[in-house]
C-alpha cells in the first residue's frame, strides 16, 4: 500500500510538471503510455528490451563472478591485495566512456566488445565490496571448521558463503543499477539495437515520448528484477538474524 501511494505521487508530480513545462518538453503520462503501446504492438519494445536485458545479464554475471573471486582472494591473501590494489584504483577511476570507446576501437563494434566493456566497468566495485566481505570473515569460525575437519566445499558453503551473502547482495544491487546505466551508453555508441540505441534515435528526432517510453519500461523491468530476485535472496540469506529489519 505505501508503495502504491508513492507510485501515485510520482505520477501526479509528473503530470503537474508536464502541464507547467509544456507537452514538447515533458509529455504527460498518457502520451508516453501511447508511445509505449505503439512500440509494444510493433514488437520493437520487447525486442529491444530483450536485447538490452541479455547484455545486462551477461555483463553482470561476468563481472559479479570474476569480481567476487578476485575480491575474495584479495581479502584473504595479503600479497594478492598488494598486487591488485593499484589496478583496482586505476579501474575504479577510469571513466566508463573511456573503457567503452577503447573497447570499440580495439575489438571493433562487436557484441563481445560491448559486453566486455560493461563488465570491466562493473568489475572493480564488485571486487571492492567482496574484498571488504572477505576481510570481515570470522576467524574463530574458521578455526572451528578446521578443528572439526570440515571438507573444503562444505566449509565454503556453510561457513564462508553465509558470511559473504550480505556483501554479495549489496554488490548485486549496486551492480545492477550501474550495469544498466552503462549498457545504454555502450548501445548508443556502437550497437544497432537495444534500449540505448532507441534512445539515441529518439534523441535525434527529439521524440520525448519515445525516449521516456523506453527508459521507463526498462526501469520497470529492473524494479521487477529487484523485487523478484534480489530482495527474496536477501530475505532468505538473513532469515537467521533475530528480527532483521
Amino acid at each position, binding site marked *: 500500500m505505501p508503495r502504491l501511494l508513492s507510485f501515485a505521487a510520482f505520477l501526479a508530480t509528473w503530470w503537474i510538471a508536464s502541464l507547467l513545462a509544456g507537452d514538447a518538453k515533458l509529455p504527460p503520462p498518457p502520451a508516453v503510455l501511447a508511445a509505449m503501446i505503439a512500440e509494444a504492438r510493433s514488437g520493437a519494445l520487447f525486442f529491444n528490451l530483450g536485447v538490452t536485458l541479455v547484455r545486462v545479464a551477461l555483463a553482470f554475471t561476468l563481472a559479479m563472478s570474476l569480481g567476487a573471486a578476485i575480491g575474495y582472494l584479495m581479502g584473504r591473501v595479503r600479497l594478492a591485495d598488494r598486487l591488485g590494489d593499484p589496478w583496482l584504483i586505476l579501474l575504479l577511476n577510469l571513466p566508463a566512456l573511456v573503457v567503452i570507446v577503447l573497447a570499440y576501437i580495439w575489438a571493433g563494434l562487436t557484441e563481445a566488445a560491448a559486453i566486455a566493456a560493461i563488465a570491466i566497468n562493473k568489475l572493480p566495485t564488485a571486487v571492492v565490496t567482496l574484498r571488504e566481505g572477505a576481510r570481515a570473515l570470522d576467524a574463530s*569460525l574458521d578455526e572451528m571448521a*578446521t578443528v*572439526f575437519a570440515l571438507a573444503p566445499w562444505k566449509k565454503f558453503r*556453510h561457513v564462508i558463503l*553465509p558470511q559473504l551473502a550480505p556483501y554479495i547482495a549489496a554488490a548485486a544491487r549496486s551492480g545492477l543499477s550501474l550495469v544498466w546505466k552503462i549498457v545504454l551508453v555502450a548501445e548508443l555508441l556502437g550497437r544497432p539495437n537495444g534500449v540505448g540505441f532507441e534512445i539515441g534515435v529518439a534523441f535525434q528526432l527529439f521524440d520525448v515520448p519515445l525516449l521516456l517510453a523506453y527508459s521507463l519500461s526498462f526501469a520497470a523491468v529492473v524494479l521487477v528484477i529487484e523485487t523478484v530476485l534480489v530482495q527474496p535472496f536477501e530475505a532468505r540469506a538473513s532469515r537467521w538474524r533475530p528480527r532483521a529489519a
Partner: protein
Amino acid sequence: MRLEVEIAGKRFENAAGERHDVIAGIAFALDAGEVGVFVGPSGCGKSTMLRILAGLDHDFQGRVSRPVDARIGFVFQEPRLLPWRSVEENVRLVAPLADDAKLSALFEILELKAHRNHFPGELSLGLARRVALARAFAVEPDFLILDEPLASLDAALAARLRDEIAMLVDGRSVTTLLVTHDVDDAVRLGDRLFLLSPRPARIVAELPIRVPRGERRDAEIAAIKLDIMRRINGDSVKPDAR
C-alpha cells in the same frame, strides 16, 4: 588415542613488536580414556596451549604427537556456532555420519530436544554452550578438548552440565583435556590434574586422582581441593573466584 606433548616455548609478538613468552614449558602424556585437567589463573596461556594441541597453531618450539587421523571434538570458550544454521544443522554439519538415534539420545541428555530447529541467536548462553557440547560429542571424538565449558554459567546449571559431561566422557573411551580455573570442576571431572603457573605457563604440579569419578565423596573432594589450594597459594598465586 595417546597424546604426548612437549611444548618448550611459545611466543607472541604484539602490534608494537614486543615479544611475550606465553608458554615456558609444558610436557605431559595422556592415555585413551583419561581426563586431564589443567588448572591455572586467567590469561596464563591455557587457551594458547589448546590451540597448539588442536593443530590450529604450528608456530611453537617443541612437539605434539597424536594420531594424524584422530577425530577432535572441541568445545571453545565461546560456543562458536554458525548463527545462520539451526541447532540441529550445526551438529549434523560436523558429524554427517552420526545416525538419528544417537543424535536424539545426545539431544535428550543435554535437554536440547525442544531447540533442534532454533537458530543460535535465539538461544541463551547456557543453551548455546550445550549445543557446542552436543556438537563436540556428536563427532564421537578420539580427542575431546573442553576450554572452560562451564564459565559464566550459574552454579546450578554448571553443576548439571558438569554431571552431563562426566556421563558422556565415561560412556566412551576418549582422551579428554579440560581447561578450567574452577578447582571444583577440576576435582570432580579429572583423572589427573595439572596445575599451571601464571604466564608464561609451566606445569608446577601434577596430581593423579585414583578414585573413579563416580565414587568421589564430598570429603575426598574437599581434601583434594584443599591440597590444590595449598599448592597454588604456596606459589603465591590467587585462585580466580567464580
